[in-house]
C-alpha cells in the first residue's frame, strides 16, 4: 500500500495500539525551555518519577531570559529568575543537557534544535511549546505538547495519541521576487482561516516546497500551528541532508550513511491518500501582512482592511469588528498607509541568518524613521555570531536598530519588557493575538523584509518598492 511521509514515520514509531484506541508512539527527543521545563521536571520529582533517557532530552533558556547585551539571570519578567534557576537546577538533577544563558549554543529552542542536529529527519520530537512544528521542515514528526504530556514523554519515552487526519498543502510554481515563505503561510491562513488545518498533520509538498531553502521551510512549518494543524512536515531532500551534515548531534561516518539510506525512503509514495488536499499557486502571492488579532486576518500588501459588514458568518464578523477596534483601524484603509511605532525582527519564525540577511539588504546604508523603536533579536547565539562575522550587526545598528542577544524576547509579553498600549508594531513573529507583545499592543505580522522596509519609511511598506543598495 502506498504511504504518505507522515504514515511512514508514524508506523516506524508505533509501539502498540492500546485497548482504548490510543496509539502508543515512541518519542525520540524531548526539548525543554525554562518557561515550562522546570514545571514539568519538578512535578515529576514530586511524583517520584524519573526521566527515562536524559541523553535524549535537551533544555534551553529562551522564553524568560532578557536579551539585553551583557545579560545574566536577572530578567524583567516578574518572577522570571525563579523560572531560570528552577530549570537550571532541575535539568542538572535529571542529567539533562542544558544550553544555559551564556552557553555559545544557546538560542530559541526550535532554532537550535535544528541548528545542533538534535532534530533529524524521521525522528519524533516534542517540546512543551506549540511551535515545535517548525522542525517538521527537516522531515521530522515534531509537535507541541502541554506539561502533562511532556511529563509523560519524559517518564516513558512515549506518548498516547489518536492518529491525526492528514492534509497535503501543495505549493505550485515559484515565488515572485521579494515574496517569502512567511508571506505564503500568512496567505494560507488568510485564505482558509486560522482553523483551516484543524488537527491535521499537514505535508507541504509540490515543486514550490522543493524550491524553498531549508530555513524558509522552517518558517512555513513554524506557523502550521497558526493554521490549527497538529503539525507541518516536509519530505527531506538533498538540501535537508546538506543542512544537517556536520551538525553537532547529527550521525557521522557509517551511522550517517545508514541514516541517509533510511531518510531516502521518507517521502510520500505515488498514489498515497490524504484526507484533504489544498493547492496554492505561489505566483499569486504578494507580500502579506496581518491587520487584526488572528493570523487569519491577513491580506496582501496592496490590499485594504476588509469590511466586516460584508462577512456573512456572524462569529467571523464579530471577531473582525473586535479586532478592528483593538487595532484602532477602520475598514477600507489601505494597509500600506498605516503608520507604525515599532519594528521587531526575531522569533522562531524569522530570526535565522537568511532572515537577517533579507532585512539587512534593505537596511544597508539607510536609516529608520527616527521616532520608531526597532529591535533585532537573532534566533540563536550562533546566528548572532555568524551575522556579526558578515557585518550584519553593523548594518542593523547603523540603520538605528537595537542588536540583541538571542532569545524569544518581545515575541511575547511575560510582564517584563513589552510594547506599550496602542503601540503599533510591524513584527516578523507568528502571533498577533491581543496583548501578545504587550498589554494593548497592536501587532502586524510580516516577513523580515517587510519589517525592515516599514522601519525605514515609518509605515507598512512593500519592500519591493525600496531601492536596494548592492
Amino acid at each position, binding site marked *: 500500500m502506498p504511504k504518505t511521509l507522515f504514515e511512514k514515520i508514524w508506523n*516506524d514509531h508505533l*509501539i*502498540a495500539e492500546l485497548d*482504548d*484506541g490510543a496509539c*502508543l508512539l*515512541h518519542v525520540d527527543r524531548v526539548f525543554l525551555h525554562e*518557561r*515550562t521545563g522546570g*514545571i514539568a521536571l519538578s512535578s515529576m520529582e514530586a*511524583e517520584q518519577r524519573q526521566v527515562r533517557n536524559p*541523553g*535524549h532530552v535537551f533544555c534551553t533558556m529562551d522564553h524568560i531570559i532578557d536579551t539585553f547585551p551583557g545579560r545574566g539571570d536577572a530578567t524583567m519578567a*516578574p*518572577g522570571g529568575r*525563579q*523560572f531560570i534557576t528552577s530549570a537550571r537546577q532541575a535539568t542538572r538533577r535529571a542529567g539533562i543537557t542544558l544550553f544555559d544563558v551564556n552557553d555559545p549554543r544557546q538560542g530559541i529552542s526550535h532554532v537550535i534544535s535544528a541548528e545542533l542536529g538534535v532534530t*533529524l529527519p524521521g*525522528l519524533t520530537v516534542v517540546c*512543551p*511549546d*506549540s511551535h515545535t512544528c517548525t522542525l517538521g521542515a527537516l522531515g521530522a514528526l515534531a509537535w*507541541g*505538547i*502541554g506539561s*502533562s*504530556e511532556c511529563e*509523560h514523554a519524559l*517518564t*516513558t*519515552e*512515549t506518548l498516547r495519541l*489518536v492518529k491525526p487526519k492528514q492534509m497535503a498543502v501543495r505549493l505550485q510554481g515559484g515565488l515572485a521576487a521579494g515574496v517569502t515563505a512567511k508571506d505564503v503561510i500568512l496567505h494560507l491562513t488568510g485564505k482558509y482561516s*486560522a*482553523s483551516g488545518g*484543524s*488537527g491535521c498533520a499537514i505535508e507541504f509538498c509540490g515543486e514550490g516546497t522543493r524550491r524553498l531553502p531549508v530555513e524558509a521551510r522552517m518558517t512555513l512549518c513554524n506557523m502550521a500551528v497558526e493554521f*490549527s494543524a497538529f503539525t507541518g512536515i516536509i519530505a527531506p531532500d538533498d538540501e535537508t541532508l546538506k543542512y544537517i551534515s556536520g551538525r553537532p*548531534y547529527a*550521525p557521522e561516518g557509517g*551511522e*550517517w550513511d*545508514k*541514516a541517509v539510506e533510511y531518510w531516502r525512503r521518507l517521502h510520500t509514495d505515488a498514489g498515497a491518500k490524504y484526507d484533504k488536499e489544498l493547492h496554492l499557486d505561489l505566483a499569486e502571492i504578494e507580500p502579506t501582512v496581518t491587520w487584526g488579532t*488572528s493570523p487569519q486576518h491577513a491580506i496582501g500588501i496592496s490590499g485594504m482592511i476588509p469590511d466586516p459588514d460584508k462577512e456573512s458568518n456572524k*462569529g467571523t464578523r*464579530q*471577531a473582525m469588528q473586535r479586532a478592528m477596534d483593538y487595532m484602532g483601524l477602520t475598514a477600507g484603509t489601505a494597509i500600506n498607509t498605516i503608520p507604525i511605532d515599532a519594528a521587531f525582527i526575531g522569533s522562531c519564525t524569522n530570526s535565522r541568518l537568511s532572515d537577517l540577511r533579507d532585512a539587512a539588504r534593505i537596511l544597508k546604508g539607510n536609516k529608520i524613521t527616527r521616532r520608531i523603536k526597532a529591535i533585532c533579536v537573532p534566533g540563536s547565539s550562533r546566528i548572532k555570531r555568524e551575522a556579526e562575522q558578515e557585518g550584519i550587526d553593523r548594518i542593523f545598528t547603523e540603520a538605528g536598530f537595537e542588536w540583541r542577544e538571542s532569545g524569544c524576547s518581545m515575541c*511575547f*509579553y*511575560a*510582564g517584563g519588557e513589552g510594547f506599550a*498600549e496602542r503601540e503599533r508594531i510591524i513584527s516578523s513573529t507568528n*502571533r498577533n*493575538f*491581543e*496583548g*501578545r507583545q504587550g*498589554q*494593548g499592543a497592536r501587532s502586524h505580522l510580516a516577513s523580515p523584509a517587510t519589517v525592515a522596509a516599514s522601519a525605514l519609511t515609518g509605515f507598512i511598506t512593500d519592500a519591493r518598492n525600496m531601492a536596494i543598495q548592492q
Partner: protein
Amino acid sequence: MKPFTTHSGIAAPLLRINIDTDAIIPSREMRRVSKRGLSEGLFAGWRYLYEDDKKLGANPDFILNKPEYAGASILLAGDNFGCGSSREHAVWALAEYGFRAVIAPAFGSIFYNNAVRNGLLPVELSEQSITALAEYSTRAPATNHVNISLENTTVSSNAGDEFHFDIEPLHKEMLLQGLDAIDMTLKHLDEIEEFQNRDKTSRSWAYL
C-alpha cells in the same frame, strides 16, 4: 485527576471565535513555577480594566463578572477555542476557577489534550447547538442549568433540548475514571523496551 461523570451547572456564553490560550491566561499572569494560583489570571485581559499596564479592577461588562454568572462551571465558546500557545496553564486556570467543561465547535489540539489530562471536559457541539444553549442559559443563567453526561455523551437543558457529542474512547475512559495517563503507559514498559531493542538496531543513528 478528578473524574468527570456527570455535571450540571451555570453555563456562561463567551461566543467568540479563535479564543487563544494567550487570552485564556496571558503570559504575564504566569509568574510562578507552579500549576496553581492561576485562576486570578483567567481571561485577565478581558476580565479587568487597565490603565496602561495597571489593573484598575473588574470589568463589569465581562460575562464572568456579571453576578448572574457567579459560580459558572460550563463555558460556551466559539470555534477553535484554545488555539495558540501550548501552555497548560490555560487548562489549569479554567479548572481552578471552577470550570468543569468547555463546549465549543472545535478546539486547538494541544488544548484539547491538556484538558482531558486535567479533568476538564472539552465538548464539541455544532455552532447551532451552542447558540441554542447560550440563548437558553441567557434567559435565566442561575436556574437554566446545562447538564452534561459523559457516560451518555449528551448535553441537555432543563427545557428538553438534548445534544449528542463525540469523544474518542481513550479520552472518555481517562475522564470517566480520572486515570493518570503515565500510570497507564507504565504498564506497557515491556513493550516499550522490546520496541527500543529492535529500534536500536534498525535506527541506530537515532540513538545518542
